[in-house]
C-alpha cells in the first residue's frame, strides 16, 4: 500500500529533515566545573569538531595571594581558551565564561563572539574576555568564586 506519491513523499521528507539540514554545521555546548586554585581550568568540552581543552585565567591571583590581598583591590580576570578544531572546516565561535559563587550568584561574566579557528589546528589560544567585555572585580568578590561555566556556540564556515 502506498501512503504517498513520490513528490508528496519527497516534500514530506524535506519538511521532516529541513530543521536538521538548516542547523547542520552548527553546534552548542556548555560545561560548569569547579574553579581550580592554580588558575588553569580543565574543561575537555567537546562541541562539534571543537575540543575546548581548558581555560587559563590570566591576571588572577592564586588562593594564597588572594587571602592576603586587600578586599577592595581590583582584579581584571582575562581568561583565555585553549581550543582544538579537529574538523575539516574552519569554524566561527562564541565563548562566554560565567563565574559563580557557592550560592550560584554570578560574580563575573564576559565573552567573545568573534573567534575563528582554522581546520585541524591544535591548541589555539584565544581571549575569552577583553577589557571591554570583562571589566574588573574586587578581590573580595573574586575570592567567593567557586565555579565557572563556559558556553560555546559555533558554526562551520566552508
Amino acid at each position, binding site marked *: 500500500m502506498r501512503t504517498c506519491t513520490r513528490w508528496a513523499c519527497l516534500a514530506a521528507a524535506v519538511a521532516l529533515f529541513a530543521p536538521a539540514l538548516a542547523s547542520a554545521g552548527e553546534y552548542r555546548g556548555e560545561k560548569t566545573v569547579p574553579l581550580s586554585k*592554580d*588558575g*588553569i581550568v580543565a574543561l575537555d568540552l567537546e562541541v562539534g569538531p571543537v*575540543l575546548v*581543552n*581548558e581555560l*587559563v*585565567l*590570566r*591576571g*588572577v*591571583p*592564586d588562593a594564597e*595571594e588572594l587571602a592576603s590581598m586587600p578586599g577592595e583591590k581590583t582584579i581584571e580576570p582575562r581568561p*583565555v581558551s*585553549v581550543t*582544538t578544531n*579537529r574538523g575539516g572546516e574552519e569554524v566561527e565561535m562564541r565563548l562566554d565564561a560565567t563565574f559563580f559563587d557557592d550560592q550560584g550568584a554570578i560574580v563575573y561574566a564576559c565573552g567573545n563572539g568573534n573567534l575563528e579557528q582554522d581546520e*585541524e*589546528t*591544535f*591548541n*589555539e*589560544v584565544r581571549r575569552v574576555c577583553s577589557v571591554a567585555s570583562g571589566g574588573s572585580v574586587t578581590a573580595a568578590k573574586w575570592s567567593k568564586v567557586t565555579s565557572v561555566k563556559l558556553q560555546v556556540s559555533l558554526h562551520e564556515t566552508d
Partner: protein
Amino acid sequence: MSRTWLGSMIAIALLGGAPARAIAGGKEHKVDVSGEVDTARGIAYVEDGRVGPVLFRQVIFQNIPNEGELRDADADDRARVLPVLVLSNLGSSRAKLDLKLQLEDDLDRVVMTCTVSRYQGTDRNDLMDKLCGGNESMLTIDWPKVKVVRLVGMVTE
C-alpha cells in the same frame, strides 16, 4: 706613587665591579623542571615548577601533527611544533628567563630544542608564545614518541 694609593686601586679593580654586576644581574635561580607530554592533546603540566619568583605551570603545543599527517609522514618529514609557556611571576619585579626548552622521547633522546630569552613582568598565568620562532622543527614521526618537555636554564630576578 704611594703604597696606599696603589693598594686602593688594586682593591677597586678587584672588588669594584662586583656590586655593579650583582645589581645588573640580580639573583639567579637555576631552572630544571619538566612535565609529561600528552601528545594527543599537545599539553604538558609542569611538575613542581616553582623556581625563585617564577612558577612554570604548563606547556601547550600548537601546530602539532594531526592523525593524517602522522599516518602519511615520510621518514624525513618535519613538523614545526610551537610551544606556548604558561607561567606566573609571583615576584614584585620583572624576571629574566634564559631557558632551553627541549622535547625528549621515551629513550631520553632530545628530538627538538629551542632557546628562550625573555623578560617576564609580574603577571599571573601569563602565556608566553612564539618561543621557538617557528624555525626549530622535529621529525614528524617523532612527535608521538615525545614523553617529556624539559626547561633548563636560569631565572634572574
